[in-house]
């Protein structure tokens, strides 16, 4: 009369030689895509999901994970609401093998403890030390502090800023912004820069006061560890002031659509940032672009598609390994990630090293500038992947 | 009983901006009597009641009730001392039933607080039951029993007036303040209320301070009358004296009432 054991799936079922459990039924692996489809990050989530889909479609066509399992998705929307994220996580977990996408810093943090006890490998969309310290997390990017440092080192190297300069910084409330700030401080100290920093909230939209503050102190650049809207506002204020000041940003701080706004021209000229996934005008990026255009009949707005593609490729590696190990249970998947240690994604993203918990999986990235002409609005300006030996440990 | 008046108002003054709504008003009300206050519209009668029940503060003067100074007390404290009031403009809880409105009159007689009520403590239940019984008695007395379960807002104006009176009675006051209790009632109903008030003073040792424009009722019921005009007392005396007072006739009565064909 009563319901069966919690979870329902036939745990320990043997299919061939591979042990499977929750998240697999028959020959179908279900991966979770828990993102923000209606909230502030809807568009980003959508493109990331499309990239994921693009990759797995190809794999499924070619025979699937270790030639046997096709991958399917359980897609849910938490609308950038933590409470929703948690309850949806609970609902999805019995049916998914791992989380291919889990959007949101505090959202990922809120489910982290559960994910650890449930053995669900997950790919969050943020790169904090907190998340990177967990065995079940595949941090998809350089930690925010190193990312900021990297951009600054590049700008120094190019002579956009010089040692001894004053630089302004605007960073977002929250651990992303704080980490970026920390990185900027480290780089500033190393290079004898004076940092004028102000913290802002997601709901702020007018950066006049902050920029004026920096300009009045003769800043030669303004760094941004915040959201694209703020980047755009900074550019607008600089442009109105007739300033000629460089800008550097963290990887979540820009979006190609900024080019169309007031201040867009200023950005195209003055703004530098790093990206973890290849731009779409070069190398592997071009291939992804082509595949995307075939499927959707137009170019994507950002290179978030490449990001999705890259993390899917890494997940593929992990699943293949787990299959090889004969254990495709959630536990087996986490174990496979540990076994592998280092993951590659066919040049879509830098090689990621997950062996040292709490540390950045990579220390290199592409440096980009915004460009109206380039697909996805970005062009790579560094000579391939860029790194600097100055970065903090 | 001592000879001390139940209520004594001395030299009360209330100002609203430039308007003096009460200006040097003094009078006293003896226990067990019906004392009326009359005067033209806007003379300050309701203001006087507002002072007595603590809604307005006097700028000058004092009010003593059973020898106790009321001038600084909050309305709810004054009510606890035994003053009940029916309002001129209905001040009932329109969406609550008549019974609930009458039970509101028991507010100052009951004690149960948030905790005891919320927990349904036996003491709270017992209190409720006891007071409800009494309230039903009062309702029957005012012919409201058929309406007990109706939301007050659905009653006709006249019936709502009766609920007002009943609620004031439910306060078990020793001094009852009535502000135009029979406005909106016809002659027969007025007479009914008048006889009821008479009965109450004799049977319950009730003292009544009555504000009313119905001269027939005032003259027949009152033991004593105070007349206000522009906030100032212009006369004070027995009904007979007042009826003859030329100042009162000029300011208030117009022609002598006597069934004049208006």
């Amino acid at each position, binding site marked *: *009369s*009563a319901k069966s054991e*919690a979870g329902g799936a036939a745990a320990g079922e043997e299919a061939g030689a591979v042990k499977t459990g929750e998240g697999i039924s028959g020959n179908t692996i279900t991966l979770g895509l828990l993102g923000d*489809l209606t909230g502030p990050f809807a568009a980003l989530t959508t493109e990331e999901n499309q990239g994921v889909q693009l990759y797995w479609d190809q794999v499924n066509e070619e025979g699937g994970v270790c030639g046997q399992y096709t991958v399917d998705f359980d897609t849910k*929307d938490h609308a950038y*609401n*933590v*409470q929703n994220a*948690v*309850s*949806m996580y*609970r609902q999805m977990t019995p049916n998914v093998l791992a989380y291919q996408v889990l959007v949101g*810093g505090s959202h990922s*943090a*809120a489910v982290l*403890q559960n994910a650890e006890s449930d053995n669900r490998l997950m790919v969050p969309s943020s790169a904090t030390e*907190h998340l990177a310290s967990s065995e079940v997390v595949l941090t998809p990017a350089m930690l925010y502090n190193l990312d900021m440092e990297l951009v600054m080192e590049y700008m120094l190297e190019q002579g956009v800023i010089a040692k001894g300069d004053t630089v302004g910084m605007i960073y977002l*409330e*929250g*651990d992303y912004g704080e980490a970026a700030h920390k990185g900027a401080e480290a780089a500033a100290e190393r290079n004898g820069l004076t940092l004028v920093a102000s913290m802002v909230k997601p709901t702020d939209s007018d950066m006049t006061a902050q920029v004026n503050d920096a300009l009045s102190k003769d800043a030669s650049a303004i760094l941004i560890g915040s959201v694209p809207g703020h980047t755009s506002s900074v550019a607008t204020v600089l442009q109105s002031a007739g300033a000629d000041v460089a800008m550097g940003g963290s990887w979540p701080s820009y979006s190609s659509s900024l080019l169309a706004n007031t201040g867009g021209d200023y950005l195209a000229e003055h703004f530098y940032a790093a990206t973890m996934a290849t731009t779409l005008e070069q190398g592997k990026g071009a291939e992804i672009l082509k595949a995307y255009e075939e499927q959707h009949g137009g170019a994507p707005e950002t290179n978030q598609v490449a990001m999705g593609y890259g993390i899917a490729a890494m997940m593929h590696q992990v699943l293949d390994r787990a299959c090889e190990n004969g254990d495709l249970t959630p536990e087996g998947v986490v174990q496979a990630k540990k076994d592998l240690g280092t993951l590659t994604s066919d040049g879509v993203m830098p090689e990621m090293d997950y062996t040292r918990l709490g540390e950045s999986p990579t220390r290199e990235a592409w440096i980009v500038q915004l460009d109206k002409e380039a697909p996805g609005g970005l062009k790579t300006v560094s000579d391939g992947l860029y790194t600097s030996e100055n970065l903090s440990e | 009983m001592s000879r001390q008046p139940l209520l004594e108002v001395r030299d009360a003054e209330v100002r609203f901006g430039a308007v003096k709504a009460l200006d040097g008003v003094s009078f006293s009300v003896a226990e067990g009597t019906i004392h009326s206050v009359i005067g033209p519209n806007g003379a300050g009668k309701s203001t006087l009641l507002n002072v007595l029940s*603590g*809604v307005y503060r006097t700028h000058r003067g004092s009010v003593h009730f059973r020898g106790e100074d009321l001038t600084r007390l909050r309305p*709810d404290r004054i*009510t606890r001392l035994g003053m009940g*009031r029916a309002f001129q*403009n209905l001040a*009932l*809880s*329109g*969406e*609550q*039933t*008549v019974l*609930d409105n009458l039970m*509101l*009159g028991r*507010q*100052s007689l009951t004690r*149960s607080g*948030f905790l005891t*009520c*919320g*927990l349904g403590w036996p003491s*709270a239940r017992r209190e*409720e039951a006891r007071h409800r019984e009494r309230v039903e008695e009062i309702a029957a007395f005012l*012919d409201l*029993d*058929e309406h*007990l*379960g*109706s*939301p*007050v*807002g*659905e009653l006709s104006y006249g019936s709502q007036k009766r609920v007002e009176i009943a609620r004031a009675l439910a306060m078990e006051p020793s001094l009852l303040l009535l502000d135009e209790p029979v406005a909106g009632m016809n002659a*027969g*109903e007025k007479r*009914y209320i008048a*006889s009821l008030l008479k009965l109450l003073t004799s*049977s319950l040792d009730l003292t009544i301070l009555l504000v009313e424009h119905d001269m027939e009722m005032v003259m027949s019921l009152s033991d004593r009358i105070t007349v206000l005009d522009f906030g100032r007392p212009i006369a004070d005396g027995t009904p007979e004296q007042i009826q003859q007072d030329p100042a009162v006739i000029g300011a208030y009565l117009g022609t002598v009432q006597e069934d004049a064909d208006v």
Partner: protein
Amino acid sequence: MSETTITAPENEVGKPPAGARIPGPTRGPGPRWLRPVLLGLTALVVLVIPLYLEAYWLQLGFLIAALAVGAIGLNLLTGTTGQLSLAHPFFMGLGALSYVVLAGEPAETSLGPVIGFNWPPFLAMIGGVVLAGLAGLLFSPVSARLRGLYLGAASLALVFIGLHVLNSAQPLSGGYNGRPAPEFSILGLSFGGAEEPPVVLGVAMGRAELQWYLGAAVLVLAMWFAKNILKSRVGRALKLIDGDPLAASVVGVPVMQYKGKVFFLSSVYAGLAGVMYALAIGSIAPQSFDMGLSLDYLAIIVIGGLGSVGGAVAGAAFVTGLPQVLQNFAPQLGFLDALGLTTAHLANFIYGAAIIAVLLFKPDGLAGIWRDVASAVRRRPNRQATRVSPGDRGLPGASPTDDSADAADTTGHGRPGDIPGAPGPSTATDSP
């Protein structure tokens, strides 16, 4: 004492028809048997549900219970006393935070150390409730001073302050990402998935099952307390404060004190809701206690029916449950992709439309529907009633046997509080 007899009249104008029945004034709608039967059935359903439903639904149930508890408290304040408050997320957040700090263990996080006192969870729960209540007490002088929308706005400030505190007081709250909420346990019964959970009728009583029962128990207590309040002298006083505060004070209600107390009470409810909310989510994050939650709460009490306890519960189920249910069942709808919509969009649309629909068709909320249904059931037996005897002209009183008037009035009435917006009895009653 005095049996007065005055000459009997020839006729009785203004008197009710003899023998008119007094409708039971404090009874709710519906026939007498309806209530106990429904209560019994509900209790049974609540008890057996965990034997059948998946954990996810049980957890959703617990979340709904948490919000329902908060909504009941808010309803006492806003629905009954007319004091609009948007500050509920603040008090919830405070309750949740206190619980987490009191029951939690000190720990190191990437943002720095966090404090914890390791109290037994039950004590920590009480602590959370008490602290939220105290905060309510602190704010109550302000709340007693303000009315209507102005109070609403002032209380909104608390939400922003609360968010700010949660974000900045990292050693307590864990900062932006929050911190995990320690599992509840009581009388040695651990909710956090004990090694060997007790088994009832073949079903393991895990976290979800136990939480379900906890939620049900707390909710029942919260409802019972609120209902008792509403039908007591306190409830009547609160309703009068809403309508006419001056009259209330003359009638003997210490208005300021009551406004303060009801604010306190509602923050106690909110604190309790906050603790449950933390348990339901498993962690606290500042984001959970933002203005969106304030608005959800308002939607809950209005959709449920202002001032109605049962309505608050129904509203909570509606507002919390609907979007989740929709996301679960909407994938079956294939046309979405064609429109470029996701199920999440659809869920939002339906949620918004449902709010609108409820208000359009039943401005007094779900509680109004219940009242209608119940009184329809009640009315059926004595349908015959209201026939009109026509043309009964003559002198007043010349028709002493006015039968039709007698026969009627067994219906209607006794439906307190459901004349939405009906103008009060006097010119002085303004709505907040």
